[in-house]
């Protein structure tokens, strides 16, 4: 479904991505790993329309995504989260999620101004769906609290609920476990599996190897803007190039 072909992103003379190609099979969890600066987040930004690639193509179900605005890509069912926590800071948890339900509503300008029954029904439905998502990520007790005042790990859960509100068919998670406690990471891993089991595809960037190896169907390894390996978690852990890249980067 998602196919990345020969993707190149250059910042001045530096190639952040230097001809990256990979595919993500439907209904799987695929992880992108690699040392810092390998180009993982750049790849996410290029796929989701936040960064125009210098060269190369991204297609989804055969249709090109390159050149589309992020909101247009989201309308095709491709939704991403951000490496640095990204919520609607001044809004409550419930309002964050309701705002994320934009694509689940249909009311246009005239209906908003003049509508009656159908408009009301839609608002009731959206409020209920927001509540369900808040419960799903386990933040029911935080519903009315302001998002920016929550602890970091819980803000990441809000972000996940907001992303799920857009009904992703392909969900791109940029370090969903970063800054979380072990138990919060457990919750997130469980959620990611449930998202896949519900029929969606998940592509994630993550540093926590236990989490990556535990939940991924496929692992792609980036280093220096290139794909150096790809395959099942067990094969990747034994891959000599991967071991070299990681040992090299950590100096250990």
């Amino acid at each position, binding site marked *: 479904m998602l196919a990345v072909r020969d993707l190149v992103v250059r910042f001045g003379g530096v190639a952040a991505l230097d001809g990256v190609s990979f595919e993500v099979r439907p209904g799987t969890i695929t992880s992108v790993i690699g040392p810092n600066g390998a180009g993982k987040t750049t790849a996410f930004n290029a796929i*989701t*329309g*936040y960064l125009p690639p210098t060269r190369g193509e991204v297609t989804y179900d055969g249709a090109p995504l390159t050149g589309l*605005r*992020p*909101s*247009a890509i*989201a*309308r095709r069912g491709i*939704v*991403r*989260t*951000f490496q640095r926590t*990204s*919520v*609607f*800071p*001044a*809004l409550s948890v419930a*309002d964050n999620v*309701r*705002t*994320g*339900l*934009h*694509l689940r*509503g249909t*009311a246009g*300008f005239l209906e*908003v*101004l003049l509508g009656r029954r159908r*408009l009301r029904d839609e*608002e009731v439905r*959206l409020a209920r769906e927001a509540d369900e998502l808040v419960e799903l990520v386990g933040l029911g007790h935080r519903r009315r609290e302001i998002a920016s005042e929550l602890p970091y790990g819980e803000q990441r859960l809000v*972000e996940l609920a*907001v*992303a799920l*509100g*857009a009904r992703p068919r392909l969900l791109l998670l940029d370090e969903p476990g970063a800054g979380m406690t072990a138990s919060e990471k457990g919750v997130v891993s469980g959620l990611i599996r449930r998202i896949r089991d519900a029929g969606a595809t998940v592509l994630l960037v993550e540093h926590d190897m236990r989490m990556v190896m535990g939940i991924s169907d496929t692992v792609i390894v980036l280093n220096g803007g290139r794909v150096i390996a790809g395959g099942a978690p067990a094969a990747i852990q034994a891959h000599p190039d991967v071991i070299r890249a990681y040992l090299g980067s950590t100096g250990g």
Partner: protein
Amino acid sequence: MTRAGRHVAALLALTLPFWLASPYFLHVVIMAGIFAVLALSLNLLLGYTGQLSLGHAAFFGIGAYTSALLTLRLEWSFWAALPGAAAAAGLAGWFIGRLALKLRGAYFVLVTISFAGVISLVSINWMDLTNGPLGLPGVPAPELGPWSLRTKGAYYYLVLAAVGLSYLACRRLVRSRIGRAFVALRENESLAESVGVDVTHYLVLAAVVSAALAGMAGSLYAHYTRFVSPEVFLFTYTVTMVIMVVAGGKGTLAGPLVGAVLFTVLPEALRAATSWQWQMLAYGVLLVLLVFFLPRGIVPALSALRRRS
């Protein structure tokens, strides 16, 4: 406000001309109403999408001139000229919205200021159309069936209806998915895009609706004072709107209304209480104190107070 409080306020508003006999007081209240529409309009952009327009007087002025010209030159009735004024201002809002698509913050502010400056110059120099600095006298008063709304008492009800409709429209808008898209744009633009909110579309929509409301206020002003001159583009008008929205509470529905009433009545009250040198000084000091002690505005401060009790 409690239910009873709301009923009392509505009753007061509906009967005001009967017990507020002085034409001077009625004039202040009518101006407060026109400014209330303007403040509601600016609040859509400033309070909900988070974009500061410092050229809002341009939309007000475009509405005033359009309405005056349509009734004077083409002999349209007021009831056709009013939506015409809103449409002309809305078109200008669309233009500004498109122009400012990639601009945020200070750059958006600059574009809106420049736009207002250009429009003001046009109104002064395009003699054939606008009569230049002399302005357009003799703008007709609205007529409703056999009645002419030329008394202040009658005009009061026209303005009251406009304020009521603008308020309801804003309330419906901000409590819908469209309003939530506006707020998403204010709070976190990249996140908004990632969940499918087409930020440029909603920024343009907010600019058009906001400008159209300001244009409607301009039309109401033109047919009330019966005279339109390039003064309608004065920067002071914009500043007054911003003060009303910020002091009342931006991003709240009641804030602009409270701000509009307070900052129309306050200068008049100060004028009655002190000489003119002290008037502006006292106004300034009050403003500084307000911003210092209630940085988020009067309405948010009141609701925080009520939550605590």
